């Protein structure tokens, strides 16, 4: 199934209320709204502390029109397992059990519970929205913060380590469906969520999610920045169905045309301000090597 949804046939159902507490220009606002459109009513969400906790609002008012369980930081994968176990125990079929967590909650503190759920083969969809730092607590570095990025805990010189490749770690669990997506390409995300929920077992979607306040760009530029990440090749869109890797959408078409230089992505955001020309050249070289691998 390779559905191509367009803006003309996208469902008008909304599961996130407007006026929620997301920041202006929040990439997660797009990701959450789009994913929930694809999931529909028969869905139970599991959410650890993250920007999404803030977006969803303060008791007793919630922005989400689907049942949602807020859980402790390190437990998301296991909590999703627990919801699914209860659905099986209560013989409730046809319910999507969906974990929605940030990059720190997924790849740092939550990786053990996620790995456990994937290894057990639990029938859940795990969506990681990757805004590349601990944004909810005020922009601290995470394992998924890219090299060179200035955060409140990598001040002045920027992060010296490379970005942790969480999808590759998850792929090592040999799950039936894994994909990357971007807040800047919501219809691609929509189709990937739709496809994921047709599969039994663990599914994982890693979504690149620009953050205006944390990355240092104008709220009007969220989609532009997200597209630049894909067009420069810094973030590749792909799918792995039963282990078969293939680039998708704009990343697939990028194979046959020149990529935008990474410098234009770095220059558009304050968080890369510490990168000098040499560092940029190095990062460009790394991207070129990765893409030579895709082409090979």
């Amino acid at each position: 199934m390779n559905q191509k949804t367009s803006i003309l046939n996208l469902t008008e159902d909304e599961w996130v209320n407007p006026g929620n507490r997301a920041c202006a220009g929040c990439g997660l606002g797009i990701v959450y709204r789009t994913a929930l459109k694809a999931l529909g009513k028969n869905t139970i969400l599991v959410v650890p502390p993250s920007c999404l906790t803030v977006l969803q609002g303060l008791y007793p008012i919630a922005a989400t029109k689907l049942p949602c369980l807020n859980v402790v930081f390190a437990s998301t994968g296991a909590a999703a397992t627990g919801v699914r176990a209860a659905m099986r125990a209560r013989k409730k079929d046809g319910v999507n059990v969906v974990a929605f967590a940030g990059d720190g909650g997924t790849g740092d503190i939550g990786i053990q519970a996620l790995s456990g759920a994937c290894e057990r083969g639990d029938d859940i969809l795990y969506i990681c929205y990757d805004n590349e730092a601990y944004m909810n607590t005020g922009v601290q570095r995470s394992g998924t913060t890219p090299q060179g990025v200035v955060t409140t805990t990598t001040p002045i010189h920027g992060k010296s380590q490379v970005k942790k490749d969480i999808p590759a770690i998850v792929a090592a669990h040999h799950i039936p469906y894994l994909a990357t997506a971007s807040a800047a390409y919501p219809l691609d995300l929509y189709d990937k969520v739709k496809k994921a929920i047709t599969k039994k077992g663990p599914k994982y979607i890693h979504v690149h999610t620009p953050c205006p306040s944390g990355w240092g760009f104008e709220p009007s530029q969220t989609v532009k920045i997200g597209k630049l990440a894909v067009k420069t090749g810094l973030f590749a869109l792909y799918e792995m169905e039963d282990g078969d890797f293939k680039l998708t959408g704009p990343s697939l078409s990028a194979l046959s045309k020149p990529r935008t230089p990474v410098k234009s992505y770095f220059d558009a955001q304050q968080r890369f301000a510490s990168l000098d020309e040499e560092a940029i050249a190095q990062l460009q070289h790394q991207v070129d090597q990765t893409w030579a691998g895709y082409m090979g």
Partner: protein
Amino acid sequence: MHMIESGNVAAATGVKLARANVIAAYPITPQTPLTEKLSEFVAAGELAAEYIPVESEHSAMAVCIAASSAGARAFTATSANGLLYMNEQLHWAAGARLPIVMCVANRGIGAPWTVWNDHQDTISQRDGGWIQIYANDHQQIIDSVIKAFYLAQTVSIPVMVCYDGYILSHTYMPFEKPDQDQVDAFLPPFTPENMLDPDRPYNFNTVTLPDVRPDIHGQTAPGYMEIRHCLHQDMRGSIQVLEEIDKKFQAAFGRGGHPFVEPYKCEDADHVVVCMGSLSYHFRDVIDLLSQEGLKIGVMGVQLYRPFPEKAIVEALYQKKSIMVFEKALSYGNQGALYADIKSALYPCENRPEMKNFILGLGGREIKTSILVETVRNAVKHTAASDDHPMWVGLKCQE
């Protein structure tokens, strides 16, 4: 049916009879045989449950929290460091008002590593909002597990059933296994008012403000503090609920009648030993020996530790000459937790008894009857010298 089995199997049998339908666990000594037995029940088709072999205790409680929030009867078991690894989840389960039942085969805490019994693991978790019941023998383990599910779902508060690692978990003792029909008649099905359900979407455990706040209909919804006050009030109320459940259990199965404390020869006693778990039955031999010497002495086991049953404790102890509290745990730098609680309960009484606190059996140090006899005999002779610092029983060398 009459059975001779280990304490862990008694616990597993209780869980099976209670028809828990989501079970998650991670191996830790000395709890492991309990969950091994449950996985066997599930694999053999004797128990219709989802058995989730999680990758940690933190995740075991995560599965229980989520499954319970989604309407399942959830169970797990652990010991020692496994319980501590769950710490934030324990507070979460209580705050979320989930009727999870957990067995803890009590074990000492590292460092240094110990696998043997004391009570430091569960005592360290006394303030998290879980009901804590301490079983004294195998019969109390199986009966307490069944009653725990009833109590938990009636008051929407999780319940810990604690029993001594090895001393009870691994020893074999005879006990009565209730019939499934009788347990089904006794224990109502779990039908929560609110659960995760796409037809009635709620957002559970959202960020809650320090102050109250109107909902979308203009009704004032509680703030964090009201929600926590409600937990406390319901904890207090669960004392009476447990008494009622115990009465029903006694009517159905012929066992019970002492849900809070279990006194032995206390009525006419001048002196009373207070302790928890299997030690309170061990002490009966000590009491018998000292009674033969003419001493008016009894022992009282505390079975319900949280919520603390002050009324039952004061009724049993307030006219005594002296109280000796023996504990396998303490609040380091202060005194035993049970001792402090009992002192506090007796404070409003006139003619307060003399009180002494003894720490023993840590990390599985053998508790010999002869040492207990000698310790109590000496303590009774020196009733006037009330000493707040706990006395350590059975130390063998200067460290």
